[in-house]
């Protein structure tokens, strides 16, 4: 876990420096120059932060769902600790992705919120996280909380494919991957970037994923200690 910690710090630091400091020029000649993208200019740098953060919030949900599933199979409450820690982290990243995306949308599309398919999806993910925590706070015993929130996470996970099926039919949009965008179906698949930008982008994805793993580990350890203390108190 030490290695994960330092590696994630190094990678994210690299992304912050490279993503912000590398100049954008009309006709890049060297590795340390990004092209200027007409209509986006410096706003393009957001892709190094917004997309990995959004990806991490999805990762947080998937990990929470996986441990919820394991709890139902084994009834071992430690899995619930792992599940809820991941969900909490995922929700934080989800908020960050919403904020970074929304600010970017204001400067690029002219409004903070547009009900673009991708905006709608992240809004729904936020709703699911919110409902998950609302449910947890309304349940009396640790066992019921673990059991029912795991069930809810799985139910929410089951609806995920439908958003993928339905979104393109219902709403057109501006976000990469929206209806009518011929270049690809997801922002990640659609990487028509110059190689050096793509490199920073992938480093960022890996860096944020590792950051997530490390933070998750810290949270789980803290939650375990907290529970042991609360048992001793009785």
């Amino acid at each position: 876990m030490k290695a994960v910690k330092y590696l994630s710090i190094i990678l994210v630091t690299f992304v912050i420096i490279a993503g912000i400091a590398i100049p954008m020029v009309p006709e890049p000649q060297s590795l340390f120059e990004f092209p200027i993208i007409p209509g986006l200019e410096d706003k393009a740098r957001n892709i190094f932060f917004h997309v990995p953060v959004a990806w991490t919030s999805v990762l947080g949900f998937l990990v929470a769902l996986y441990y919820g599933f394991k709890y139902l199979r084994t009834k071992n409450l430690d899995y619930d600790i792992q599940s809820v820690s991941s969900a909490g982290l995922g929700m934080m990243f989800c908020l960050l992705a919403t904020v970074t995306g929304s600010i970017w949308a204001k400067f690029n599309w002219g409004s903070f919120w547009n009900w673009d398919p991708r905006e709608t999806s992240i809004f729904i993910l936020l709703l699911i996280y919110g409902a998950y925590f609302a449910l947890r706070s309304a349940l009396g015993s640790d066992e019921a909380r673990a059991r029912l929130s795991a069930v809810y996470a799985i139910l929410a996970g089951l609806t995920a494919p439908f958003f993928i099926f339905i979104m393109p039919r219902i709403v057109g949009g501006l976000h990469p991957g929206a209806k009518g965008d011929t270049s690809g179906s997801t922002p990640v698949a659609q990487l028509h970037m110059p190689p050096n930008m793509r490199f920073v982008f992938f480093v960022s994805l890996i860096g944020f994923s590792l950051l997530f793993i490390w933070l998750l580990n810290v949270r789980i350890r803290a939650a375990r200690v907290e529970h042991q203390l609360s048992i001793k108190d009785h």
Partner: protein
Amino acid sequence: MNTKMIIGGLVILVGIVLGTINFLDSNVEYGDFADARRIQKKIQVKGEWVRDRESSFNTEKIQFTFYLKDDSGEISKVVLDGGRPNNFDLAASVVVKGKYSGDYFHATEILTKCPSKYEGRTGVMKKQS
């Protein structure tokens, strides 16, 4: 218990496959001006703004008028309810939603698409290297 899992799992699989098939052949409801004239219903038309023909803004009716060339090459007058979008000048392509009425396309909504997002001038760069 196990047969239960198998039955349930299979039904879920069938459901998702059904949805996926639907997703794969979901016809994106874009059309061109010819379609719009024919069906006389709300439709989305994708095209390019014709920059060298006049565009105007009617402050009384709050309508923006411009010319759009659809993907099949036809140029038509478009009247949009509302102002000129912020990044209209930069847009590589424009999507208008609305109905054909009389001799112009009456749009209620407009979407402006930026140049393929992060491509930048890679094409230029490749040629030079």
